[in-house]
């Protein structure tokens, strides 16, 4: 969003495409940001206001780039648009959702809750339009949604479309995805209900999340009081992700504050190799260290077992400060999962030849000589970055894209 806005505000014609039905990506799914503990809705609102007021920027949701040919200044891109089954007449009144009864796992809550198969992705979704899930489009349920719509916005005849366009430069801002915790076998995410990921915990803490903001554990819905956070769950590990994901330490330090603010006698224990809170974040780390509800254990947990009686995960390991062996029970375990670049679309669509990836699959840049580069990566697609640094990276990528457009236009004129 930032990359597109910066370029559009410099007077460029910008097309912003998003695979999802709404803009905002994973940022919109966070409860709060570190280090100021403010809500993402604030930043999103500012960006949406900039976006709505800019005639140079066009948004295409549910759209993917499937092919790119040509050279800088003159790329031909092929876009695939998935059917939303709802057109621009939609006023987001919600009558279609009332009319249908089928439900799907809510992607906004990482499947922790269900949502009607006719849904608004989230309250700040842009475009502010409902989506009819493809699973009900050609069923009686779809017809119910259509009948309920007072403005004729439901169009069940929509088909997948393919279109071709010419663009001067491309910015890849495809973002990230949480590392698949099922792959970390010793931690039992696939076997134990009370082992969850940090992104899921973010949804639990959100008042608009599946538990209404209460920190309830999945197995029995009891309030989680004694919560363990496991750092480097996937990151800095040659068996999983070889890079440090950079954000997880601060994300956990932030989440310990959700536990404290939930009141009661909630306690957090952070198991870590070392805490990487860079530059100004050190202040936040010191603040959390002074917090009596938070304790730190310098150790990468070796494995998790299950207490069959109460469903508590039992953490086994040896701490590095004294080499004490522990087997500690907690009522909820949060895995601070690593950040993986979201490039499956790029690779799946045979775009691998056009871009260069680093050893962790982050996008380094454009294939070929750097003087010919007209494609740039921004944000978490380029490197594991927090929101603040993603925005900086987006502005930088945008500037390079603008230069490409300017240079190639001037050559053509000359």
């Amino acid at each position, binding site marked *: 969003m930032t990359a597109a806005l910066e370029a559009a505000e410099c007077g460029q014609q910008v097309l912003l495409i998003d695979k999802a039905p709404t803009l905002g990506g994973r940022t919109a799914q966070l409860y709060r940001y570190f280090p100021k503990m403010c809500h993402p809705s604030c930043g999103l609102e500012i960006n949406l206001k900039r976006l709505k007021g800019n005639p140079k920027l066009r948004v295409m949701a549910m759209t993917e780039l499937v092919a790119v040919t040509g050279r800088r200044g003159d790329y031909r891109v092929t876009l695939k648009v998935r059917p939303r089954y709802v057109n621009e007449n939609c006023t987001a009144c919600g009558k279609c959702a009332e009319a249908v009864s089928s439900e799907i796992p809510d992607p906004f809550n990482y499947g922790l809750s269900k949502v009607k198969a006719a849904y608004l992705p989230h309250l700040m979704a842009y475009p502010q339009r409902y989506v009819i899930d493809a699973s009900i489009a050609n069923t009686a349920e779809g017809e119910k949604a259509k009948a309920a719509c007072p403005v004729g916005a439901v169009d069940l005849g929509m088909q997948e479309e393919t279109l071709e366009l010419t663009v001067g430069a491309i910015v890849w801002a495809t973002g990230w995805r949480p590392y698949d915790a099922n792959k970390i076998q010793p931690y039992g995410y696939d076997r134990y209900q009370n082992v969850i990921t940090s992104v899921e915990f973010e949804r639990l803490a959100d008042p608009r999340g599946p538990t209404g903001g209460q920190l309830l554990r999945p197995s029995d819905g009891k309030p989680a009081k004694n919560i363990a956070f496991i750092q*480097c769950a996937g990151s800095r590990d040659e068996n999983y992700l070889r890079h440090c994901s950079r954000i997880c330490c601060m994300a956990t330090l932030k989440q310990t504050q959700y536990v404290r603010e939930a009141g009661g006698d909630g306690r957090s224990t952070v198991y870590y190799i070392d805490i990487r809170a860079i530059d100004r974040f050190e202040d936040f780390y010191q603040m959390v260290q002074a917090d009596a509800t938070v304790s730190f254990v310098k*150790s990468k947990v070796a494995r998790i077992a299950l207490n069959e009686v109460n469903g508590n995960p039992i953490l086994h390991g040896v701490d590095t400060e004294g080499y004490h062996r522990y087997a500690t029970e907690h009522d909820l375990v949060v895995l601070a999962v690593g950040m993986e670049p979201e490039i499956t679309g790029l690779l799946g669509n045979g775009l691998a030849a056009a871009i260069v990836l680093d050893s962790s699959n982050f996008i380094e840049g454009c294939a070929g000589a750097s003087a010919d580069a007209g494609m740039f990566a921004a944000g978490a697609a380029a490197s594991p970055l927090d929101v603040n640094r993603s925005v900086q990276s987006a502005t930088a990528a945008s500037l390079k894209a603008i230069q490409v457009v300017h240079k190639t236009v001037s050559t053509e004129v000359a």
Partner: protein
Amino acid sequence: MTTNTTAAYQNSFLREVEAHVEEGAWVKMCMQCGVCAGSCPFGPHWEHSPQKIFMMIRAGKREEVLRSDSMWMCTSCYNCLVRCPRKLPITHIMHGLAHYAHRLGLAPKGQPTRESARLFWNNCIKHGRINELKFTLALYFKDGLAQGIKNALAMQGIGLAMLKAKRLNPFAIFGGHQCKDKSGIQKIVAKARELEAKRQEQAA
């Protein structure tokens, strides 16, 4: 001249391990996360986990490391090796350390795994093949005649069952299966020893 109250940092033992111990060059890559120590099924039963051994090597605790019996407790389950986030060949390093300590004569005397490995090796190179009966008896009687008889009586049920199942040949006491070219085997071993000595010389 001022006197140092703290010991000067020495990494001479780390260098020694890197030069002489199989896979020893990996020791410096350990980041002290503790996953190996926590993953070891024998962890609670030995004094020094791999994590601790690696830190002791870096701290120059030569005597304590080489006299430790921890390396001898390794059952080669490879749990530490597959889980190590930095892919250190931990199992191999532990065996390398054990071997090095044994060669220097610093390994703990009478440590059961060491003793059994020694008996196995001597038995094996003598005939070019392992003579199971002789090896078993040597193990039983390694702590003296009385203890040997006690051991044999305690195991007689299993022994008889193996005899019945033809898994144990009592006539192996007279020699049993042997390699056709025993002197050839011994030449191979001698050559290997020679190469290893040369390698060690070069490392030093």
